[in-house]
């Protein structure tokens, strides 16, 4: 196996990427303008990639979340989103409600 494709190799890549931008930010602080269209576009691509990966982690999981029926996961996410919006985009009420609904569905199905 390619050394870079081991967990250690991938951790080194992830750390290198994170550290590179942090260090660049520290060195360039006060010297560059970050409120530019190029940065906006980069943040958009980030949002799209991370959002897509999180949807994948919920709806196409390789974890034990796969043992929960898709309908239960979808209902939990929908309720979490509804609570998040109803509470004026407050993160914790939405996340906690969605997770509790999922836990309750697991308990209910095991009865």
């Amino acid at each position: 196996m390619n050394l870079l494709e081991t967990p250690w190799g991938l951790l080194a890549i992830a750390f290198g990427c994170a550290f590179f931008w942090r260090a660049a930010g520290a060195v360039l602080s006060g010297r560059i303008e970050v409120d530019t269209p190029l940065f906006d576009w980069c943040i958009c691509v980030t949002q799209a990639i991370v959002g897509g990966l999180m949807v994948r982690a919920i709806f196409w999981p390789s974890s034990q979340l796969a043992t929960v029926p898709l309908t239960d996961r979808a209902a939990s996410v929908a309720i979490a989103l509804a609570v998040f919006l109803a509470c004026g985009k407050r993160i914790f009420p939405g996340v906690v409600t969605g997770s509790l609904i999922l836990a309750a569905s697991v308990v209910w199905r095991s009865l």
Partner: protein
Amino acid sequence: MRETSGTVRRAFFLGLRDSLGLPAIGIVAALSGYGVMARDAGLDLTMAMLSVATIWTMPSLMAYAELLASGTAAWAFFIALLVISIRNLPMAVSAIPVIRARPGFRWHQIMLAQLLSPTAWVQITTVGRTLDPSDRMPYYLGFALTLLAGGLFGTWISHTWASGLHPALGPALLLFTPLFVVLTMATSPKRSSLLALVTGCILVPPLMLYDPEFGLIVGGITAGTIGFVLSGRERRGPERKK
């Protein structure tokens, strides 16, 4: 300006005290989900803890665990993490001038940037500005180090006890963290970011089913560009009407 009596120790403990409460609870909860996810992805406790300490932002951590679990090729992993981590640049650029006591670059500022998380960034760019400039660095260190300790604690406890968790708690934690990351990104005030998030959530997963590497990169760039272009048109729209 908040009173810290100018002492380094007092400012440090003020930062520590401010992070205990909702910020620390949020980090412990979010990283508890990451601990279970990392364990499911095959990471041992050392790797899971080390990944938290070194990567230290939820989007990159979650991408690391998810891409590791899906067996994505190293080149696609590198491009994805490089793009995702670019969020660290504007965060450091805007936070470091607030934290440092004197203008100009010093090498230790890279270590300060390494401790930055979105929560610490919000705190230092809002509350930090109300402090005396000489108190900001110890305040920031107290706040950021407590968050890091909370993150490591959450990862450790969930990774260690994952197999002994109630059968309902594991899946709930595995839902908690991706939801936390998505909803955190959904609080962005920029319409372009929100449009890109929604487009990415719809476009990237099916494209990754077709081809994991190209789906991730091409799907991410396409969805991000769609969000960026659509919001740009919207911004220019009202100006034309004037």
